[in-house]
């Protein structure tokens, strides 16, 4: 049984949030560093180029084409290991002298992708080019190989990616840690609550030695459970006392009436009056019995006696038992039991539950009604359905039928304690099942779901 749905747990949400935050911070930092470094590097290259172009112009005084040509040619031929490439052009792009591969068609900075660098060391690289209008219809262009910036960019990028990877791993680790630490504590509380809900009021939330928030929560919950248990014990004591105290005098009353009926010389009509009195007493006793049973079942005390029960056989027996009565009252009782299904349960109580459901249908529907009882598997467990096509229950009242002493307006005059369906609901709860009433359109449909984990 899963205690916590990890995909929706608070611990998971906290962990996920932490991870996202760490990754976001690392990414932002990376982008910032990358931009800063890139900017500084490019700035240096630009400064070098600008300086060189100033040099070229300054060295040769007022602009003079032949001197510029000479200056550029002398620099171009300075050797293989020169730092810059030079070109002199006219504004219309006509080449005058220098490195013809430089694109010099417009004034200003631009990056140029070249297939082959002057030193042929790489097949492809980027150069930064500055073209300046030096007057007298002349453009001077200077290019500087900037492949090291690209290299640096790449290295920096890889470094940042590695840092990001590390951050993701760290975040995942932290998430796992949070999930384990918080998740386990929450699971403890959830599990305890579930056990208590199922009727074991002695279960307590484990308290660790850490004395943290969770321990304080656990201690408070445990105190609350102690208190609830004390109250429940008191209540069940009172209920048992009342039951005993009322059942005993009622029992004596029954004995006395019985004795009088059997012993005394009675006037005509008195015998039947006494029989009616006994019936009334029996009715009262039945109500007390049902009330006490519901109280006892709800306290969960009977779970200890659970055995593996054949659900199908139990339903079948109940239907067989009621079949002749159904026929006599003009009802059609149809049982459909799919297969042998075993559940952990109390056979006596389950038989009573099904009997109550069938009796309920027989009592509150007119002749000619068909009552279908079925046992079949569903996606969440086993479902026992008792459905009739009688008059049904008004939509507003359908949720109330499992309440104690509920009597539908139309059935106030029919005999019964008004506890039959409450008892059925209590028995379903005891077995970890749920009982629901729906509109069978027409009629009433009562389904009891036994979840998969109660199946034996």
């Amino acid at each position: 049984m899963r205690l916590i749905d990890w995909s929706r747990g608070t611990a998971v949400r906290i962990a996920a949030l932490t991870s996202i935050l760490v990754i976001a911070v690392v990414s932002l930092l990376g982008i910032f560093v990358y931009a800063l470094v890139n900017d500084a590097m490019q700035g240096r290259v630009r400064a070098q180029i600008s300086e060189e172009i100033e040099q070229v112009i300054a060295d040769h005084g007022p602009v003079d084409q032949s001197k510029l040509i000479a200056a550029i040619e002398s620099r171009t031929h300075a050797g293989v290991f020169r730092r810059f490439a030079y070109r002199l052009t006219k504004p219309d792009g006509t080449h005058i002298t220098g490195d013809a591969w430089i694109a010099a068609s417009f004034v200003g900075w631009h990056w140029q992708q070249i297939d082959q660098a002057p030193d042929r060391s790489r097949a492809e690289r980027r150069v930064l080019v500055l073209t300046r209008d030096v007057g007298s219809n002349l453009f001077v262009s200077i290019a500087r190989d900037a492949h090291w910036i690209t290299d640096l960019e790449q290295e920096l990028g890889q470094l940042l990616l590695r840092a990001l990877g590390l951050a993701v791993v760290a975040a995942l680790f932290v998430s796992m840690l949070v999930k384990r630490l918080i998740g386990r504590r929450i699971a403890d509380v959830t599990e305890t609550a579930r056990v208590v809900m199922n009727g074991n009021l002695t279960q307590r939330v484990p308290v660790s030695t850490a004395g943290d928030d969770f321990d304080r929560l656990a201690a408070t919950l445990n105190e609350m459970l102690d208190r609830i248990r004390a109250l429940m014990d008191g209540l069940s004591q009172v209920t048992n006392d009342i039951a005993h105290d009322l059942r005993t005098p009622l029992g004596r009353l029954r004995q006395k009436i019985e004795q009088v009926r059997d012993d005394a010389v009675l006037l005509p009509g008195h015998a039947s009056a006494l029989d009616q009195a006994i019936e009334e007493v029996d009715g009262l006793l039945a109500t007390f019995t049902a009330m006490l049973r519901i109280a006892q079942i709800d306290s969960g005390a009977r779970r200890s006696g659970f055995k593996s029960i054949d659900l199908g056989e139990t339903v079948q027996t109940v239907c067989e038992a009621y079949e002749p009565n159904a026929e006599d009252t003009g009802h059609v009782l149809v049982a459909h039991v799919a297969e042998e299904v075993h559940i952990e349960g109390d056979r006596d109580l389950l038989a009573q539950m099904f009997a109550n459901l069938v009796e309920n249908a027989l009592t509150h529907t007119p002749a000619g009604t068909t009552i279908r009882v079925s046992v079949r598997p569903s996606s969440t467990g086993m479902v026992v359905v008792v459905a009739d096509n009688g008059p049904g229950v008004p939509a507003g009242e359908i949720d109330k039928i499992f309440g104690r002493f509920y009597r539908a307006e139309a059935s106030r005059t029919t005999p019964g304690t008004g506890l039959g369906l409450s008892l059925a609901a209590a028995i379903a709860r005891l077995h970890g099942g749920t009982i629901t009433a729906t509109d069978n359109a027409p009629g009433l449909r009562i389904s009891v779901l036994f979840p998969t984990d109660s199946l034996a």
Partner: protein
Amino acid sequence: MKVLVIEDDRETGAYIKKGLEEAGHVVDLAATGRDGLFLAAGEKFDVIIADRRLPGIDGLSIVKTIRGAGVMTPVIFLTTMIGVGDRVEGLEAGADDYLLKPFAFAELLARIHALTRRPPMSAAETVLRVADLEMDLIARKVRRAGREVDLQPREFRLLEFLMRNAGKTVTRTMLLEGVWDFHFDPKTNIVDTHISRLRGKIDKGFDGELIETVRGAGYCIRAPH
């Protein structure tokens, strides 16, 4: 028959004693568990009726103790407790039957008779007979006056229960427990309906009715007078 009643409630004890004596039994009444245990262990009784809840030594302990000492006298528990778990607990401790207070006196009498005058059933006995009605337990066949009667499985079990207690009154509650294993009180009279079906098959059209209604108690199968 000699009956021991262990009951701490004075009125109920007196009521049971009076009723049993009127039915022709000899009754010893013990008001505490200690007295009850003393009597049960020391004297020979045909049946013991013990309240489940007694001050001091309770009914459950008494049964465990005397069964441990080898006393096999049939024991009927009386209880005000509602739980079916209690029933199983009582039977496991060694009690033979279990009755929820308050009860109709006829119910108690019927159960005493069912327990004490149980005829010795030899294992070889495979045919039950009441007058001209015959039940073959092996072949699962029923004949009346030589004519085969077709019964549903549940009707067969109902008739078998009656025939095993032939001549004795069996109550509706005993039938509910013995035939359907129902340990609750249904609002509907399902026993009466089943009995009337059964009568329709084994009594109708034959000479003399075998299944008798015992007013205020239950049913009895026996040869017609």
